[in-house]
């Protein structure tokens, strides 16, 4: 066998192992074309203009409604909706009369008053996310299964990562149950993996520092200088899934978030683990049909949880109604 033959043989074997299911010469199917039209709209459509009237109506009426709710002292983020069965009910938020920057300053002040500590390469994260199947949402359920990821990793790439079955959350917000839909026992190990030196590649090998410019910080996640609060809120969990940051580092992350466009305060809330928090909203033109809810602790200022909710028809969650929580991540442990 000469060198070229050996090359061909290797290439043939590698190609025979190609796991792609879709044949290379597949013409676009009706489903693929439907996905395209969901993203960009069908040719000749004028979706922007057809939505002008509702937008105008909303922009006229919304301030009035908000004022009324402020007078009543209470605003509940899309309260019991038929959509809630696809995911946990949106958190109830009470207006606290403070604007975004004042609320953010209070959070930062709390964080800066915490005792000095170190960033820790060990973290526990509770999470749930809607799972689309064949481009459709699963059937509505009374409760959704949460999972808990626990990671402990070292600078040299060694790591131990365990995913544990958490309790199921009733979608109506009435608490949790140990009866998971997948039948796993709560606390049961779903996966347990050990990584040898050099095997584990963290998302961020170091957390941003206060001395980093906002631009430099954003670029650590591959974000551009024009990124908005929603863009940043969408990547913060990747750092908090692996790091349990000191309060100083949490302040750096939050300080960056609050400086970006699309950052507003919603009010006071109690998160899904029963902790008092301040709810901030982050939006991005990248995902106009999604909004991110960032909950900071009302006692320590630390990140408690980040949730994503649909706004209108989200092309990633076709068939999922407006106002559905589709993704939830929480950090149960203080340092």
């Amino acid at each position, binding site marked *: 066998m000469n060198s070229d033959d050996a090359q061909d043989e290797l290439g043939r074997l590698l*190609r025979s*192992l*190609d796991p*792609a*299911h879709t044949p290379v010469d597949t013409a676009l199917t009706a489903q693929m074309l439907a996905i395209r039209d969901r993203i960009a709209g069908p040719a000749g459509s004028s979706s922007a203009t057809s939505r002008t009237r509702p937008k105008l109506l909303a922009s006229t009426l919304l301030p009035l409604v908000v004022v009324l709710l402020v007078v009543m002292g209470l605003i509940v983020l899309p309260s019991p909706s038929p959509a809630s069965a696809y995911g946990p009910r949106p958190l109830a938020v009470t207006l606290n009369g403070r604007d975004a920057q004042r609320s953010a300053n209070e959070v930062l002040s709390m964080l800066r008053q915490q005792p000095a500590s170190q960033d820790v390469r060990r973290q526990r994260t509770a*999470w749930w996310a809607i799972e*689309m199947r064949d481009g459709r949402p699963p059937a509505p359920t009374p409760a959704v299964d949460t999972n808990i990821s626990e990671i402990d990793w070292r600078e040299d790439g060694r790591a131990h990562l365990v995913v544990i079955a958490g309790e199921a959350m009733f979608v109506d917000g009435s608490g949790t149950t140990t009866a998971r839909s997948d039948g796993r026992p709560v606390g049961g190990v779903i996966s347990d993996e050990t990584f040898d030196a050099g095997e584990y590649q963290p998302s961020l090998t170091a957390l941003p520092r206060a001395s980093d410019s906002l631009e430099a910080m954003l670029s650590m996640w591959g974000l551009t200088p024009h990124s908005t609060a929603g863009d940043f809120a969408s990547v913060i969990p990747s750092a908090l899934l692996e790091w349990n940051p000191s309060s100083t580092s949490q302040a750096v992350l939050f300080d960056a978030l609050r400086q970006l466009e699309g950052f507003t305060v919603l009010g006071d809330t109690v998160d899904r683990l029963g902790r008092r928090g301040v709810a901030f909203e982050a939006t991005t033109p990248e995902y106009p049909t999604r909004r991110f809810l960032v909950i900071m602790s009302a006692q320590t200022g630390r990140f408690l949880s980040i949730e994503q909710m649909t706004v209108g028809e989200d092309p990633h969650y076709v068939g999922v109604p407006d106002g559905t929580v589709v993704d939830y991540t929480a950090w149960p442990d203080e340092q």
Partner: protein
Amino acid sequence: MTREATEALTKTREVRRSAFNELYEAHYVTVLRFVERRVDTRDVAQEIAAEVFTVLWKKLDPTVPFDLPWLYKVARNHIANHYRRLGRRAAAEQQLRILGYRAEAIAGSVDDDLRQRVIDGLTRLPARQREIVLLTYWEGLSAAEVGVLLDMRDAAVWAALSRARVALRAALGTPARMAEGGTR
């Protein structure tokens, strides 16, 4: 808004849509296959492929070239996020598992032993080299395209690919002196 301005806006929108449709038609299946090779269910692959083209639609500027390596790059980020979220090994590690499934699915031919040796060889390669091999043989990318995707220079890609081929041919039992196909 004046009628002229509305017409201009509509025209711009149509130009964008047309550019998007062209890219979608040219690359959707390729991107879907790229993702299918790296995640273990079709649903997730379809979801990630749709996310990639949503990002394209948001960022698309018909005057700026958006090519396949750019789409692959976006797809890699989404795949990495998918695994990170699941608290699982990096995508490159998952690929080995997927390769194992594939080998099982096509088991029963005379190539079984050779395929297993290739998988063993791939398992022993550093993650970066393995990624370069698979991008070359599965995606059919040139060294320059792999370089764009992995932020490496062409020469570094060639060097890594050559080292990987030597190792894989050794795993197949091909004599080492024949193994090197040239480093250019």
